[in-house]
């Protein structure tokens, strides 16, 4: 699919607004109802969607923007997530033909696998920054429970994001169908 600058601008705006809504939900609403240990990383889901389906030279900058928005709500910062996102998007260039998003189950499995890859990259980077690999597994395992929930939610999210980015509106790219 070919995107005009207006399409990209509108898609970016809608995606950022969705992310802001989800970050506020995670940082303010969930703790207010007593859920303060469950923080699904919606930014990861959005970046994975873009890496899977948005084939455009602007993709790395879009990942950077998404992570920058995420950094407003977390001291994790934008840099590590951007690095992970760009590395995954680069690896996907060689794996795209193997990925299947035709059913909800296949979408869930693919998203789960790439979330695990994401968290390995993040855990490695955080361990390097902290100067010790002693807490590598503890950092990694903290992400895993939320990742299952995100994977289950991913087909629904992808339907919404497909609309934002007009994926599946032509024959060149297929959206998620449940």
């Amino acid at each position, binding site marked *: 699919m070919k995107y005009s*600058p207006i399409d990209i601008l509108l898609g970016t705006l809608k995606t950022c607004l969705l992310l802001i809504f989800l970050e506020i939900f995670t*940082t*303010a609403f969930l703790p207010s109802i007593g859920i303060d240990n469950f923080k699904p990383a919606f930014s990861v889901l959005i970046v994975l969607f873009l890496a899977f389906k948005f084939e455009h030279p602007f993709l790395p900058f879009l990942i950077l923007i998404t992570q920058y928005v995420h950094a*407003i709500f*977390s001291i994790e910062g934008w840099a*590590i997530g951007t*690095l992970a996102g760009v590395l995954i998007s680069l690896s996907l260039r060689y794996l795209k033909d193997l990925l299947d998003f035709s059913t909800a189950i296949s979408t869930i499995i693919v998203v789960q696998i790439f979330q695990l890859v994401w968290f390995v990259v993040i855990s490695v980077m955080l361990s390097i*920054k902290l100067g010790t690999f002693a807490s590598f597994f503890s950092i990694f395992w903290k992400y895993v429970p939320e990742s299952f929930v995100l994977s289950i939610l991913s087909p629904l999210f992808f339907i919404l994001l497909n609309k934002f980015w007009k994926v599946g509106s032509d024959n060149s790219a297929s959206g998620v169908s449940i």
Partner: protein
Amino acid sequence: MVLPLKNFAVDSSRWKLVSNIIVLIIALWGVSKHQYSINKVSVFESFLIEAFAPIQRGTLSVKEKISYMVDHYVLIVNTSKVNEELKAEVEKLQGKIFTMSEVEKENERLKQLLDFGKEIPRKKVLAQIVSFDSSNEFKVLRINKGEKHGLKLLSPVITMTGLVGYVYRLTPNYADILTILDQNNRVDAIVTRTRSHGIVEGSSGFRAQLKHMNRTEKIEIEDEVITAGLGTIYPKGIKVGKISKIDKENYGITQDVEITPAVNFHKLEEVVVLLEEIEISKDDSKKESEKKVLK
């Protein structure tokens, strides 16, 4: 004439490669520059935090209002028509009583907070928790006071029960607190009973570790841990927590000590930020002592 933007939109692998390299370089620079112990925000970041923090704060009140609507209006639809108005009135009054009692409790808490730490010769700013960090890995709180209220980076944050952390990131009206549960926060601490010295660091969950504790130190479970006041951030004598687990291996020169923080982070609503030391009182006491000497 073909616009450059149109060219950009073409799916060109050359552009993809260039943009990937640019963003990777930016990201690597960002990783190397990012600090997890202190963070000075840019004007743009400050603007974004200032813009979204009120929404985060508002989310709580919206949730309370929805709960109130559901509890007090929606659920009484099926009650008898005769008593409808009366019951609604009673519900309203109960709601008001509930709100009043909540306000009373809040006032009591705030009063206790303000009374707490009178012996600490510092200016204090009372703040409310607005939100929590969106990543599970970092234990950070956002409060509704910032630079305009006198807060500075590295200002210590406490409650009446103990130490919370310090100001990590600051905007004009909001601040992020790096709590003692975060592994990037390190607190010089001593065990009150034995005066043994160690460093408190965040660990997994809602607990912290007391590191570098010599294995010959005869510490016990339930021993109280307070700040040592050796660093530049925390004043001496603030409760950090109690020792909840001690592991001594057959080897090594230290022991593994786990502490349960004095502050219940699950129920944290208000905090006190300690600002610079009050100079006036010191000067006054100095002048008074000088006068006494002269007499």
